[in-house]
């Protein structure tokens, strides 16, 4: 019987670049920016890193294929480096690789780094790209907002919601994240917006408007992980450990079988329950202090709150409007500003989320610091509501 990942691996250091329209920076520049902060935080030498996992999402507009871009950018010492790509869960996948390597005993210190350069496409939004030779022949030419707008229509139909009420709750999700982002110097978007602005913004994909969409930006984030024993021997205190690391990947049931109605994210429900079990969490609403979830679109965050059991099914609108996920609420969400304000450089996002929880748990989150946080949950969702990859990681103080 597997014992799970809980408390087997700790975070030795983390780094995160400034996110934004980084016209000045190449992918290598972004990697180095995140890495330099990370290795200084870890307090080790580059030569002590024994293996690395490199997350990058969209090869064509980023660094190209293979793990070499990371090895070259950081001048790694001919160590094993693995390139991972799993859509929007890519950053967390890199983290998972490094954590599992340390947990297995194959190495003591491992690096995970994610990077994405989205602003070299020449247009707004995520790059238009192939979905594979066969899928391209019959899939709708759906944009990311078009894909997640499906969730809004499915959710609204299932719960017989008034469109305006849902739109107002979606607006609140974005207003809250913008309010948080103002306090984060590394966020791409650092300004408040009003509910009226969000509701009145131009439509991108009905009912998703401009302010229901996360930003599009360049960025990189990085983690160095090790064993608790080694971290202590390096003199580290207030250790943050990995409590759970789960992944659920759609197998076609949602997209082709009648059992799924389009109103929720099946993978999130499965991965989060597994993660709660792995971390020994029985009452998520009481035990999860903060969440960084995949708010690619406001509706995704709203539905995710239900799928994570942080709101009752069909009651996400009320929970959002009651302020449960605001900075002062019962379960603050996107305290760093989320994808909404950081944008979503695909390979980096998962690690950027963990970075925020890491800072919060160490009391280093500055103006946005929460009072005595305990458990932080990170959620990535790659793909489309009907076919996706969900990653969940939970971090907390090492017991």
């Amino acid at each position, binding site marked *: 019987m597997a014992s799970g990942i809980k408390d087997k691996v700790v975070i030795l250091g983390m780094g995160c670049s400034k996110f934004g329209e980084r016209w000045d920076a190449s992918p290598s520049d972004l990697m180095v920016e995140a890495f330099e902060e990370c290795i200084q935080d870890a307090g080790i030498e580059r030569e002590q890193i024994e293996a690395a996992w490199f997350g990058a999402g969209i090869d064509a507009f980023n660094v190209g294929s293979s793990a070499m871009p990371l090895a070259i950018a950081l001048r790694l010492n001919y160590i094993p480096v693995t390139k991972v790509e799993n859509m929007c869960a890519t950053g967390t996948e890199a983290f998972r690789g490094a954590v599992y390597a340390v947990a297995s005993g194959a190495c003591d210190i491992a690096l995970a780094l994610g990077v994405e350069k989205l602003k070299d496409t020449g247009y707004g939004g995520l790059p238009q790209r192939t979905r594979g030779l066969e899928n391209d022949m019959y899939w709708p030419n*759906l944009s990311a907002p078009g894909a997640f707008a499906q969730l809004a229509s499915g959710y609204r139909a299932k719960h017989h919601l008034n469109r305006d009420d849902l739109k107002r709750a979606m607006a609140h999700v974005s207003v809250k994240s913008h309010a948080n982002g103002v306090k984060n110097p590394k966020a791409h978007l650092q300004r408040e917006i009003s509910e009226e602005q969000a509701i009145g913004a131009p439509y991108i994909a009905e009912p998703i408007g401009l302010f229901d969409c996360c930003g599009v930006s360049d960025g990189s984030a990085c983690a160095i992980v090790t064993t608790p024993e080694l971290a202590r021997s390096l003199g580290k205190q207030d250790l943050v450990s990995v409590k759970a690391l789960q992944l659920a990947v759609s197998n076609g049931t949602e997209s082709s079988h009648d059992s799924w109605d389009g109103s929720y994210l099946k993978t999130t429900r499965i991965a989060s329950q597994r993660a709660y079990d792995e971390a020994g969490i029985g009452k998520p609403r009481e035990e999860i202090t903060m969440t960084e979830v995949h708010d690619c679109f406001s509706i995704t965050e709203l539905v995710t709150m239900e799928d994570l059991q942080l709101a009752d099914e069909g009651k996400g609108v009320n929970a959002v409007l009651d302020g449960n996920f605001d900075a002062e609420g019962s379960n603050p969400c996107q305290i760093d500003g989320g994808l909404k304000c950081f944008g979503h450089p695909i390979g980096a996002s998962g690690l950027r989320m963990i970075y925020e929880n890491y800072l919060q748990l160490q009391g280093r989150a500055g103006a946005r610091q929460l009072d005595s946080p305990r458990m932080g949950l990170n959620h990535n969702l790659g793909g489309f509501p009907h076919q996706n990859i969900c990653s969940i990681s939970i971090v907390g103080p090492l017991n």
Partner: protein
Amino acid sequence: MSGIRAYGAYIPRARLAKQAMVEANAWFDASLKSLGKGERAMCNWDEDSITMAVEAGRDCLQALGELAPSALYLASTTLPFLDRQNSVVVAEALNLTPGLRSMDVTGSQRAGSSALISLLERSWQGDDFGLLVASEHRRSKAGSRSEMLWGDGAAALAIGDDELIAELLGVETLAVDFVDHYRGEESEFNYDWEERWVRDEGFMKSVPAAVNRLLERCDSSSDLIKHFILPTEQARTPAAVAKRLGIDPAAVVDNQLTTVGVVGAAQSILLLIKALETASPGELVLLLGFGQGVDALLLRATERINDFKAVRGLSGSLARRREEQNYNKFLSFNNLVQRDVGKRGEVDKQTYLSGYNRRKDLLTGFLGGKCRECGTEQIPREKYCVNPDCQALDSQDKHSFANKTGTVATWTADRLTFDWNPPAYFGMVQFDGGGKLMMDFTEVEEGKLDSGSRVSVHFRVRQFDSQRGFRKYFWKAIPLEQASAEGEA
């Protein structure tokens, strides 16, 4: 005795108001004002001669109770492929047997009537029958009279020797290289000669010559003709020819210049359907095709004509319409203006033919699977059954979803992605009887689609690969009724 067993038709929903065309172009050619009445049928961006042929063919086959023809001839002068048999694409979209006799008949405005003659002259027995589909999507120069007078559409006939609604009495043909217009292999558009000359030296001479020989051969006379079909965009010519032949002017079948427009090589077949929709048993129909000569056919409606029930037919196709006032859309959809499609429209659209060939059942036939173990219907058909409680290997029989209806589970109107007619509507369709698919919608009217809307599926153009001259087809959902999305709970 051979003849017509059934018919089907398809007219694109969009009907472009001719007044809008006049307003856009009369500054250049004031004579267009005289053509400003009514409307013309206009293909959506995702329709062409193949997709319309599939629609007309389905309409005809459904009227026959899904019997399968042993031959399919596709007549058109605007086939999307010059070297790839278009009729076989239509046949596969209709899920017809590969043992089919098929061919494209093209190169003349007589293509429809000549293909009809050819099928009528084949020997049929019992249930065996041939399907003729004539379909046309003609391009014409912006601001031309042709643009005002032509229309897009398709017509289908089932031709056999049994259970006939109209029987053939005789055929006469005339092959004369009279060049009223032409389109060379390097030309995009037709080039034509003066109307009056075409009327006097073409129609008025060759049609009477062919008709008189036909009537003599059939031992019939012109005063017995109840339906006189002469396809032409010349408004007064059919009546003038009828008069010269001694045919009752009331017998002239209207060329629909102010409702559909002249549908090229499909016009004679479409007008035959128009005649059959009103014909009584025993009535004679004289059908002509004109182009480098004349085809002349004499048909007689049988007793069965009273019992025949078209599924949609021409009258049903005419009734199902959507008014279009935007002439710019017409220009865009017909590639008559270089529209800025944005960077998202620049993505390479190559079709990988070997991969396409593996998925042809799905892409062209819209075939999914039905599991022999658990009965679950699913699309696409993969190796393992999708039912989580089954997941049997290689357990699915091919199962057509083309004639299924379904319900919209999720949807959106996407303004970010590239589409020739934004916003792009797509969503998850839950099919009746099981199976679901995320698919494109088309023909959606703004504000009239929601979860719960009922849809049917239709063969349409999915993408143009302008770099390589290819086009991809797939099936799209169309709301059965454009139900109001107002009054949400």
